[in-house]
């Protein structure tokens, strides 16, 4: 009987502290949202098609990090398909023009990655990364991204990552951790 009382009390305490914690987290969250400026808030209505592009881009990046040409080629063609499926109609005329340009360029690079050896794949990945970064600047994304930079590859080359840990897609296993986080996006 005493045991039962104790456990009920413990449960109650746990529940209370849990609820309290959640409340706090929610408040923190609200606070964070409030701090964001208006344009970022608009971007928070994330664009599913842009997210799909980013997802393929990250898979491609991971394949290059792993020195896996075949996988990179497959991810390249997937990325080309998601790029083609992008719908810019909800953006302003000016953004649409910019996005069309970005998508056209990125598609070409993705298509080349789909049919090249690893050296070429990495060359194209460099320009592709610039395109995708410019795309995110317009579309926004729901995730925090890190722009990372390797000063050695082709006089300095950047890429995007979902993690702040550096895994170099330009050198792979040869220099896996070469580079640093240059910017945090979102």
């Amino acid at each position: 009987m005493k045991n039962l009382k104790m456990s009920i009390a413990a449960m109650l305490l746990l529940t209370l502290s849990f609820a309290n914690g959640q409340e706090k987290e929610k408040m923190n969250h609200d606070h964070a949202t409030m701090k964001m400026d208006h344009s970022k808030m608009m971007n928070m209505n994330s664009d599913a098609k842009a997210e799909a592009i980013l997802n393929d881009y990250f898979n491609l990046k991971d394949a290059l990090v792993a020195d896996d040409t075949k996988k990179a080629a497959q991810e390249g063609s997937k990325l080309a398909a998601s790029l083609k499926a992008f719908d810019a109609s909800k953006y302003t005329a000016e953004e649409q023009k910019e996005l069309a340009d970005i998508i056209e360029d990125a598609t070409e690079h993705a298509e080349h990655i789909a049919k090249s050896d690893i050296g070429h794949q990495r060359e194209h990945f460099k320009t592709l990364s610039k395109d995708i970064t410019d795309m995110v600047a317009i579309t926004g994304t729901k995730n925090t991204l890190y722009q990372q930079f390797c000063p050695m590859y082709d006089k300095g080359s950047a890429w995007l990552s979902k993690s702040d840990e550096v895994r170099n897609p330009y050198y792979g296993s040869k220099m896996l951790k070469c580079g640093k986080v240059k910017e945090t996006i979102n």
Partner: protein
Amino acid sequence: MKIVKIIAIVLLVAFVGIQFMPVERNQSDGVPKIDFMLVNDVPSDIKNKLKVSCYDCHSNNTKYPWYNKVQPVAWFLEGHIKEGKAELNFNEWDSLSSRRKVSKLRSIIKQIESGEMPMDSYTLIHKEAAFSEEEIQQVIKYMENLKDSL
């Protein structure tokens, strides 16, 4: 001995025969105003090099010396012209946005730097298209400057 003779004759007949097959020639009148040479201030030696080494497959006008008219060389060329123009057409340079130009220039530089362009199979029959080490440096430097100016 007899069999060799027969094979030689068959090959000869085939060779002569394919000369009569129709080919599409990559030729057009005049150079559009958006041509690479017309919108950029290209030094004459580089201009010349690009015309000789690149324009056969990367423009709307292929020069057809006799050997480019002979089959199967002409077929081989036709395929590459199609592919080459899809990748890059110097005649339509200024229709590209700055982003696309930078992208193309980057590829041009990489291709020449690595010796992938002009293609070996092309320079084999078109000797003057090959780049000397000095020409490589010269053209790359020009393209780099152009890229940085965009």
